[in-house]
């Protein structure tokens, strides 16, 4: 009798352990309904690794920018500098003429951006809401103008600007923005186009019956409903204008003709020469000699404003693409 009982209890144990094993297996490998732990682990490890690789240049930049010359040469110091050395930043800022350049770059990026938003919303509304002859050709041209590299129209445009005496002034950015040809304007027009298409036509017709004109219905109904698109376009436009160094250097700060305006990124481009000049002018020993720490500090300084903006307004940046409906509803 006792033997039988023992046998039975053993069997029960076996079954229990089988159930347990199954449970563990399910937990690790996952079932149809739920992902297993192993899969989750792999996903997290992959994400963290890739995230680190993404941040690597930034971390490198930050760590190098706080090193003094001794730390740089010391092979035992890899990541964490021995002392918190800020002089790099001060010297870099001095040679870039930081405050003045900073305000100038805000103007250089901000003014065309505002115009870009206004004009692109206008044009996008025109394309989305109205039917007129030649619309399809125009849309084709719009996409074509985006695909075409800007280098090909650069020479004649430069000639045009220099004939109009616009090179070196802010007008070289404002004029194309006014005519819907600003930086990456085709993308913005398409974003507005997508957005205004989603505004129900009935609303606008109702406004018309109540006596609103075309422009009034645009301003009072379409624009307020397009605020997410406006935020998106504004943010991207300002970031892209801020980071644009090629055209800024050519048209605004001038390669051939020196203009009055410059931006941080353009200053960064010619950093070495500027820095050496500034170091030569200043009294001996007051500035650090040009090394990679200073260069990294300058890079940090020139991207700091946009970085700050990104961390404050990150929600708008990250959700922007969802909201604009590029991917189609």
């Amino acid at each position, binding site marked *: 009798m006792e033997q039988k009982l023992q046998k039975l209890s053993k069997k029960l144990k076996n079954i229990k352990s089988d159930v347990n094993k199954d449970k563990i297996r399910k937990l690790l490998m996952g079932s*149809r309904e739920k*992902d297993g732990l192993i899969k989750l682990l792999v*996903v997290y490890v992959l*994400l963290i690794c*890739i*995230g680190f*690789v*993404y*941040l*690597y240049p*930034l971390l*490198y*930049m930050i760590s190098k920018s706080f090193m003094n010359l001794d730390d740089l040469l010391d092979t035992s110091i890899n990541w964490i500098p021995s002392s918190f050395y800020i002089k790099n930043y001060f010297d870099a800022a001095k040679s870039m003429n930081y405050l003045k350049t900073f305000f100038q770059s805000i103007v250089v990026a901000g003014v065309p951006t505002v115009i870009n938003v206004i*004009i692109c919303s*206008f*044009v996008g509304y*025109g394309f989305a*809401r*109205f*039917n*007129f002859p030649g619309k399809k050709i125009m849309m084709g*041209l719009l996409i074509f*103008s985006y*695909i*075409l*590299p*800007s*280098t*090909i*129209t*650069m*020479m*004649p445009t430069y000639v*045009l600007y220099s004939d109009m005496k616009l090179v070196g002034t802010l007008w070289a950015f404002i004029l*194309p923005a006014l*005519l*819907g*040809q600003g930086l990456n304007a085709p993308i913005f027009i398409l974003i507005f186009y997508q957005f205004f298409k989603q505004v129900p036509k009935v609303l606008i017709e109702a406004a018309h019956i109540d006596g609103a004109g*075309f422009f009034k219905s645009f301003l009072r109904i379409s624009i307020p409903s397009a605020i997410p698109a406006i935020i998106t376009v504004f943010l991207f436009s300002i*970031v892209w204008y*801020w*980071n644009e*160094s*090629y055209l800024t250097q*050519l048209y605004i700060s001038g*390669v051939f003709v020196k203009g009055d305006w410059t931006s941080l*990124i*353009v200053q*960064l*481009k010619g*950093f070495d020469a500027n820095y050496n000049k500034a170091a030569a002018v200043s009294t001996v020993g007051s500035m650090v000699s040009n090394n990679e720490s200073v260069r990294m500090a300058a*890079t940090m300084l020139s*991207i700091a404003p*946009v970085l700050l903006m990104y961390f404050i307004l990150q929600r708008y940046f*990250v959700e*922007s*693409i969802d909201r604009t409906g*590029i*991917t*189609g509803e």
Partner: protein
Amino acid sequence: MSKKPKVKKVKIGKLERREALVGLIFVLPWIIGVFMFLIIPLFQSFQFALANIKMTPRGRVITFAGITNYTQIWLEDAQFPVMLIKYFWETLLSVPVIVVFALIIAMLLNGKIKFKGFFRLIFFLPVIIVSGPVMNLLTAQGAATIPAMNITGIQTALESLLPNAMASAISDLFSNMIMILWYSGVQILIFLSALQKIDSSLYEAAKIDGGSAWECFWKITLPTIKPMILLNAVYTVIFLSNNEHNAIINIIQSDMFAGNKGYGYASAMAWMYAIAETLIVGIIALLLLTRKDAYDKQVKRVKKEIKKQARALKIARRRGKRNGAKITKTIKKAEKH
């Protein structure tokens, strides 16, 4: 004889015409802009490329030079042709890498994951700070490579196997791995929002039918986001081509102001560059557009057949009518006689 009642021609309604006019007014700034900054410069640039332009104190002197600019670039310029070929290979190779990588990350982020917002924040960060000078400085400092990745072995193996331009392109790809990854911020977000819009009932149905996750990916996810793949690929090409990290556009700019080269020479270069870029876009579009769904194909075939039958029926009917008319005519004739 009574006059026929006048049939009014169908005209566009007054309201519609007014709407079209207003629409044109809305688009007008852009139309002017296109002429001023796209069409006219395009023709001018074509003209410049075939000319010799000299800057004199009295203004520009344009002399027609035929295709000498082009021949000069290909026969005498030491840099440009090599760089153009390298650009071609590099772009063609890095576009798939970027797109596939973006897709993988988007798939990883698409599941139920904690700190999703944080990861999105990291992956989108490069879009904000990426710009020519920053990239150049970072690459110059060696911050663009993953230090743990030793690539010299791969490099030598590649160089012995492949033609030079291609080998150097691939090894460049490896040595600038982080930069390549950095370029995929926008693409990740586009893929992510496309993935989130796929109807989840599709997956449920597939699971009930016994489809594995692997099959679901190939049969549901990929076909649904195919348009986004094309969009992302084209975006990547354009981004890579207009990025200042790209050496060619810097050469074009510096040659524009070089004394012995000038606008004409630089225009010719820009044209060649544009053609190379369009070629890449064309290749990608061709690869991604031609393969249609089997289902689509079948639908098309059936539709065609239905159309054919309808046409045949119509013809038969018309013939029948005509024949009928003929018969009645002959009958009438016979009656008259």
